[in-house]
């Protein structure tokens, strides 16, 4: 059914202004974002994003599911970085349970999270460049993204909706040859980033479309709740992976790219540098991958191995119980935040002691980042709106949930 929101009332400030509707079916809104613009000639006077077209009530659905059944729902929030959402959710539930996760599972989670970041940034770079008119970059980026998706398929059987992490560990051991493939990818990927940079960074047309466009100061970014590269592009040096580490990120060496200018180009530079840093983390994770189990030793919570189910009575009973009645989580509440490719992805979970979450709330990085858009665009040219929307890297699935 069509979305029934009537046009929000924007009283025209002067007679000569015009209300322009952009979206929701606009190719450069990255999904179904509708933006209502009040323009005076080519200048944006006021701007109002209108969202909710993709609202599917995931938070409500979570309340009717067992804890382990929520994991596949989390993929669908931000469909460009499923593993990050999986990770954030399972970390929150593990914090509620007080579970200790074996090191190998933690390192695998880091490895896959950084691959997810590369995947997400490649989609962003391709579409953002395409929005501004550089069509070639899109094809280059999707060539490498395809390889990342194939690696996801190797571990989880799915290209996009991976659902690979479980409460208490990860679902399966990665198949034979997976690490070699990742190592090969991590070896040649920096040279591919050079290719993208050759096409864009020094390109005078790219510079004209991005430098000095859609500026935002650090104070505005903090006040509006921006996180991730949108915040770091304005000169605020804050990254949850380094500053509030989770899943053993404290054992990895990486730089946090920060740019001072606060314009589209600054945010572009942050993300492109992050591609390189993520590759470095992937390499460290491969080199230092610990040996050991991939699931926590918690029989009532973690599903037993297939082999054990065929030979041990207890394993079969636990399997039956977890599948049919879930596992109870001690009452309490946690807020767990991770650094998703877009910023602070947070899960706030309230448990009332039963096997279903009482409340699951997702703090969507994009929702807060979207609020910065009017600040960036008002008083600027209409043509720059597309560049600004691309530069905050929004995913409407995450905004609307």
């Amino acid at each position, binding site marked *: 059914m069509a*979305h*029934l*929101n*009537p046009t*929000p009332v924007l009283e025209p400030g002067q007679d000569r202004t015009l209300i322009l509707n952009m979206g929701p079916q606009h190719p450069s809104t990255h999904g179904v974002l509708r933006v209502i613009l009040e323009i005076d000639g080519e200048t944006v006077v006021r701007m109002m994003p209108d*969202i*909710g077209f993709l*609202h599917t*009530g995931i*938070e*409500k*659905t979570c*309340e*009717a599911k067992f804890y382990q059944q929520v994991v596949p729902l989390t993929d669908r929030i931000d469909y460009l970085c499923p593993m990050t959402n999986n990770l954030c959710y399972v970390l929150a539930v593990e*914090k*509620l*349970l*007080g579970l*200790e996760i074996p090191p190998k599972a933690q390192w695998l989670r880091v490895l896959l999270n950084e691959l997810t970041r590369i995947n997400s940034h490649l989609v962003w770079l391709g579409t953002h460049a395409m929005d501004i008119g550089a069509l070639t970059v899109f094809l280059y980026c999707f060539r490498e993204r395809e390889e990342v998706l194939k690696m996801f398929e190797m571990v989880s059987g799915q290209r996009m909706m991976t659902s690979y992490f479980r409460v208490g560990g990860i679902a399966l051991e990665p198949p034979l040859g997976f690490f070699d493939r990742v190592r090969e990818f991590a070896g040649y990927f920096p040279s591919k980033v050079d290719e993208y940079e050759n096409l864009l960074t020094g390109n005078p047309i790219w510079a004209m479309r991005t430098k000095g466009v859609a500026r935002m100061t650090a104070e505005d970014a*903090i*006040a*509006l*709740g*921006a996180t991730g590269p949108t915040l770091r592009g304005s000169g*605020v040096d*804050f990254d949850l992976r380094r*500053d*509030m580490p989770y899943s053993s990120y404290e054992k990895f060496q990486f730089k946090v790219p920060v740019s001072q200018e606060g314009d589209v180009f600054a945010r572009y530079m942050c993300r492109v540098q992050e591609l390189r840093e993520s590759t470095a983390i992937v390499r460290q994770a491969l080199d230092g991958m610990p040996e050991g189990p991939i699931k926590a030793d918690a029989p009532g919570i973690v599903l037993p191995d297939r082999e054990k189910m065929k030979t041990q009575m207890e394993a079969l009973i636990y399997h039956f119980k977890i599948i049919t009645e879930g596992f109870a989580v*001690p009452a*309490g*509440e*946690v*807020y767990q*935040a991770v650094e998703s490719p877009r910023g*602070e992805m*947070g899960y*706030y979970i*309230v448990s009332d002691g039963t096997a279903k979450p*009482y*409340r699951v*709330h997702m*703090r969507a990085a994009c*929702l*807060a980042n*979207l*609020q910065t858009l009017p600040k960036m665009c008002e008083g600027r040219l209409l043509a720059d709106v597309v560049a600004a929307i691309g530069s905050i890297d929004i995913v409407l699935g995450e905004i*609307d*949930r």
Partner: protein
Amino acid sequence: MPLAPAITDLEQVKNHPAVARLVGWNAEAVTGVKFDREEMTIYVDREHIREACVLLKDDPACPFNFLSDVTCVDWYPSEPRFEVIYHLLSILNKERVRLKVRLNSASPAVESLTSVWPGANYFEREVFDMFGVRFTGHPYLRRLLMPEDWEGYPLRKDYPVEGYR
């Protein structure tokens, strides 16, 4: 790591920067504390939430200058029914604190934080949209995700998962 029991005694946690700051300002505004799973929760009186946030934001020692999230939990049918939850972050000190305001079902309204953090705008609209909690002083309190003419508040516990209409 086995779970430690939650600490709810104000005396034991008074050294936490946010607790110290709020109790030093107005002890009556703090109606309770909870330290559980390494996370600090402060229950703030509904009348004082905006001033408490201004105070925490401007704390020179540990400025909680970033509003991460605003959300709500419905404890239907018990009273006070709603808990509005604010997650504050100190970018400087890498510290989080959670503020909670309890609201009765008769008049679920609380002062808006948009004058402190403009970023509270969408979060509060979402809470209004999903729970029907009103934020006084909000510049544009309309539905955010649901259609404008939607009836009911979907995330309330007396709203079924399916078959509402």
